[in-house]
């Protein structure tokens, strides 16, 4: 289980995140929403130790992991904003990269599992990541994250720039992962997608949490919808 308490991130004097708390259990999905610049990516990056945490704590299964870089975060994987693939690596190498330092047997087993989920990648193992289409690149970024065999998967706007079909494909995969017990924390601007997929939501504005709850309630509350849309 992932727990954040009173997390604060600052860049110089810019307060990107102020006092955010949340929990995420196995098999659960939490959507983080908010306008551009609301602090969503800062939240994600702080959990993964990619930006310094000014205040507050991150816990994984009760253990304090605040500020730990990803290579010391067993069980957490990130699908970052903009996918961030290394263009010169092949699809196969990108998968290997995501697996971390594991035995050849573990690597092969994970690869088989991941490629079964993404058959479109199986036929492109030697293709360079830089030559993939947007949809394929997103699948590869997702697959790279899954190669780490995470219990918690964190995604930062995976649907950005994707066709509706490719987006639907991403969310179908995420739904399957939840069934397998993986906790999913997803930053998503598309409200209908976010609320339709997640159990709970967290709404950020200027770095502060301004709304949270179960998505079932949010669907019924017209006021929240307005808040989410930023009116």
């Amino acid at each position: 289980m992932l727990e954040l308490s009173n997390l604060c991130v600052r860049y110089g004097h810019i307060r990107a995140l102020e006092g955010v708390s949340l929990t995420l259990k196995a098999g659960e999905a939490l959507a983080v929403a908010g306008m551009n610049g609301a602090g969503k990516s800062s939240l994600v990056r702080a959990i993964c130790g990619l930006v310094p945490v000014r205040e507050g704590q991150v816990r994984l299964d009760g253990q304090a992991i605040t500020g730990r870089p990803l290579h010391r975060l067993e069980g957490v994987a990130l699908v970052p904003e903009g996918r961030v693939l290394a263009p010169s690596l092949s699809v196969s190498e990108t998968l290997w990269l995501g697996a971390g330092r594991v035995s050849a047997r573990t690597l092969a087993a994970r690869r088989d599992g991941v490629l079964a989920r993404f058959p479109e990648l199986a036929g492109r193992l030697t293709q360079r990541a830089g030559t993939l289409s947007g949809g394929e690149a997103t699948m590869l970024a997702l697959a790279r994250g899954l190669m780490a065999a995470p219990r918690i998967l964190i995604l930062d706007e995976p649907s950005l720039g994707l066709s509706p079909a490719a987006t639907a494909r991403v969310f179908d995969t995420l739904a399957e992962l939840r069934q397998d017990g993986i906790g999913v924390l997803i930053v998503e601007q598309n409200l209908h997608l976010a609320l339709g997929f997640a159990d709970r939501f967290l709404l950020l504005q200027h770095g502060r949490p301004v709304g949270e709850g179960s998505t079932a309630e949010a669907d019924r509350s017209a006021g929240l919808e307005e808040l989410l849309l930023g009116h």
Partner: protein
Amino acid sequence: MLLDLVQNTVDGLAVGAAYGLLALGFTLIFGVMRRLNIAFGPSIMIGIFAGAWLHAEWSVGMVPVFLAVLAGAVITAAYVERISFAAIRGDAALASMASSFAIWMQLEEAVARVFPGRTYGFPTFDGMPMIEIGPVLLRPEYLVMLVTAAALVAALQWGLAHTRFGLELRTLADRPEAARVSGVNVARVAFLTFLLAAAIGGIAGFLIAAADGQITPKIGLWATIKGLIAMVIGGLGSLRGALIGGLVLGVVEANAQWFLGAAGREMTTYALLFLALVLLPAGLAGRTEAGARAEAERRL
């Protein structure tokens, strides 16, 4: 005349292979950290002096001398990395360079104090016969240079393509952020790359010192300059280019030395550097790394 040209080219290729190894070390560090390590040559110089000292004090054979050079270069590089690169923030490239410059002076001063004479002997490959290929002669130490460089480059290529460390190194050179978000321990890879570069440089330094039979503390600066020029000729950031750059530099220098003398050689070297910068800003190996990345990102 033609025979001289062929002979010089053979000699130049051998020395150029050692230059190529120096450039390879530079390129590895530059590719992964995007910074120049001015103290690269002086780290090698420390290793060479460690080897020369061991030989003078204990008259040990070539293998222990070689190991001492390797160890000296790698340990010094670890020191340089900790002081000038790891300790300085990721985006402060100029500070790293200035700091590695200061360390270079520190290392050279230290060696000049411990070894106050100007030149010292270095063991050579004695007892190996001159190799005759028709009318062309190949010095045995040059054959060792060529074979070692070829084997080292082949091993490096293989390691980069097939090992986990090679994969992490390539990712870091290609797109550091991709390494970070994929859970690569970036600081560890950078440190190990630094040591690998020093080991390659140490091997080159050992071969060069063994071919010359004598060394001075200036060999550090010399190695930095030769490696830098070969890297620039080959195109910054490309391993293949570094090797080609070294070979071209070696061949041009050997011929210039023969036909124009020592002063002519220096002038030709700098003319070559100038031409490389003006005519081939992307180096002999073709397009720049930045260009390749921009191209790849347009598709992403």
